[in-house]
């Protein structure tokens, strides 16, 4: 029984039960506006954008790091991608988003290692810089993705790209040193160092991978919304949190060995709750309160530490 409770299957069962529970609640409350197969597919498509970012964030969150520049990078990479797409089509769009995203990740990792200050401070500082660079790159103009370059705006393009991202994440976690070393660094950095792990190198790799996934998220985001506007004054901050919620699910369900499924299904659950409230006609503030509360309840019920354990 103890083994079963630690098994992958048990983790899946909890996630599936949560999906069914929230679906049932909103279906009962608003049967006509919520939960048709078309609706569910639409929720899923919007949630996978955040799931991709959640996968990227997982690499640094397990190491005990944090990144506030994710939202700023989504905006900047989207704008760079759209600008390059105007000259080079899909190649410019993809290389622009992925290249810009990854370079920013390398820059953050490099500065984090060099400055030797907490990741939260480094990324808040850089978020302000990237927001301004995005405004400069966009020339103060809203950037619109050309209609002929919108393969990733809906199914099957968005699902194919997200599935490739999830497969990449799965491969890295299970079949490269990176996954093992990120977990090891998060568990005990001193011991990891003594095992010959180049901690700084893998932290840099963690940031680079995060922002590569942010690059993919930028492709999906700008394709889905078709336009991107650069804004300053920390207005990109709100874009950090939705992918992060998926990461919380991933970290919480790591003990079952199902972090990626947990990120994807967790984001789907959040989308169900959010859209459920939309269907109920609840104001946005209430939607946010309930979504936040639901996240806390879900993580508390499923993944909180043992009674008496130290939680930081």
């Amino acid at each position: 029984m103890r083994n079963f409770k630690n098994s992958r299957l048990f983790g899946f069962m909890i996630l599936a039960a949560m999906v069914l529970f929230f679906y049932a609640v909103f279906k009962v409350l608003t049967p006509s506006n919520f939960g048709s197969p078309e609706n569910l597919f639409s929720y899923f498509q919007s949630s996978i954008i955040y799931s991709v970012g959640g996968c990227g964030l997982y690499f640094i969150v397990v190491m005990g790091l944090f990144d506030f520049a994710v939202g700023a990078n989504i905006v900047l990479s989207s704008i760079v991608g759209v600008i390059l797409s105007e000259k080079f089509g899909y190649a410019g769009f993809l290389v622009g988003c992925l290249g810009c995203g990854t370079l920013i990740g390398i820059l953050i990792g490099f500065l984090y290692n060099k400055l030797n200050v907490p990741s939260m401070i480094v990324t808040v500082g850089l978020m302000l810089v990237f927001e301004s660079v995005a405004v400069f790159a966009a020339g103060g103009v809203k950037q619109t993705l050309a209609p002929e370059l919108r393969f990733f705006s809906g199914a099957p393009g968005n699902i194919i790209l997200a599935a490739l991202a999830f497969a990449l994440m799965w491969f890295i976690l299970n079949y490269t040193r990176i996954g093992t070393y990120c977990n090891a660094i998060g568990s005990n950095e001193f011991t990891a160092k003594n095992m010959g792990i180049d901690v700084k190198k893998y932290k840099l790799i963690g940031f680079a991978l995060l922002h590569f996934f942010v690059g993919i998220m930028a492709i999906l985001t700008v394709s889905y919304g078709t336009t991107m506007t650069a804004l300053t004054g920390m207005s990109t901050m709100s874009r950090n949190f939705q992918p992060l919620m998926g990461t919380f699910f991933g970290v919480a369900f790591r003990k079952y060995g199902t972090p990626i499924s947990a990120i994807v299904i967790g984001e789907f659950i959040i989308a169900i709750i959010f859209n459920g409230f939309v269907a109920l006609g609840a104001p946005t503030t209430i939607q946010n309160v309930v979504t936040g509360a639901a996240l806390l309840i879900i993580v508390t019920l499923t993944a909180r530490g043992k009674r008496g354990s130290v939680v930081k």
Partner: protein
Amino acid sequence: MSVLLRAEHIDKRFGITHAVNDVSIDINAGEVRALIGENGSGKSTFCQMLCGIYTIGGGTFTLDGQVMNVRNQVEANRLGVSIIVQEMGTLSGLTVAENIFLGHEDPFMHYGIKDTRAMIREGQRLLDEYGFNNIRAGAMIDSYNFEDRKLVEIVKATYMKPKILIVDETTTALSQNGRLELYKIMDSVRADGRSVIFISHDLREILERSDTITILRDGEYIDTVNSKDVDEDGLKRLMVGREIGSAYYRTDYGTEISPEVVLSVRDVTVPGQIEDVSFDLHRGEILGFGGLSECGMHEAGKAVFGASLERYGSVTLADGTAINDIPTAIKHSIAYASKDRDNESIILNESIRNNIILPSIDDLAEHHILSGGKLNRFAQEYAEKMQTKMQGIHQFVSDLSGGNKQKVVLARWIGKGSDILVLDSPTRGIDVKVKQAIYALMSELRAQGKSIIMISEEIPELLGMSDRILIMKDGKINGEFKRSESLSEEDLIAKMV
């Protein structure tokens, strides 16, 4: 015998502390070499330089004719040196197999891709080969207890067949079966013509398991002796530099225990840990608790202190006060020192002062205002009373040896003036000199009318210090013995197993 490891003029300083001072020794192939000394004598530092955890301050290690200059454990492993450490050496969030091969993934990597299945398969093969079949290589390490994780660490340290295996105070973390497995491995290393450096504070174990013994004192080399030419008293003399003998344990027998009961424990149950435990603690009594590691005695100590998470039954003081939580226990003069000193008793990244004053802050405050001078004087007084070896009360506890950390824990509760002390494994990992000091303190406290519950995995300690001994087995009290000269280890063991 040929020399396998030559250490020449090894030196290490930490600030003003000269941890290892110009130590030179040779270790022969096919030898188990014990390294003994008091806490802070430099034996662990010496070994940690050898295996790359610390950089070498001075001198050279030459292994099999090759000068070693390693920067981390993996480089040391590659040259043939492995270590099993005293505390937890496995990493959470990884599988058992990932832990075993951490830093040594190359055989499973093909063009940057890890063959996870092959790694798990090989990990399982090794675990089976060592006889640890209950551990699954593909499972998360977090699903195993401390001892199983120690066994994984043993596999990790030895599967590469190191030329030098360092066993640093590991046996105290293992049950009897785990110890026997480790001894087997040490014997096989010796039989293969390789060598073991064995660190332990259990002198009987040292004499039984080693061929030769090197003694360090205050970071300096003292002597190397053959195990068969020396006895425990001789080793103690070499370690401490003076005679340690008769005053080690209590020598009084036949003294009556006060009939006054200060604490009553009735039908205490902690699900899965202890069941229907009942006993009385008398004024001025040292009540020993013994048993095998998982018998429930450690949980019984927590239950008395109100630290159990789910407890049934009652713990009451003589005045009828029920002890159900830690704040009530402390308020009513109960102290507790955990077996897991670093994680549960001490705040490592804090100063000696702040550790000592912690439970006494309310008593030391005047109108809720704390005076720095008063706190300093308080901490200084009790640190000195415990003869803590320190640079000053503002030194961080993390810099202290295990024995001196324990002195800080005891100073805290002595300063608080606790009347009932629950001491779980009070001399675990502690050298003979500090042990003697702790036993003397316990006798002094007993003479003052304070009561002590001493939980111990060391039978001689139970026999030597207790007025009464309760033996636990499978979560229940299985036997009770009164202090007596005729009481033997066998009497206690018969109730333990």
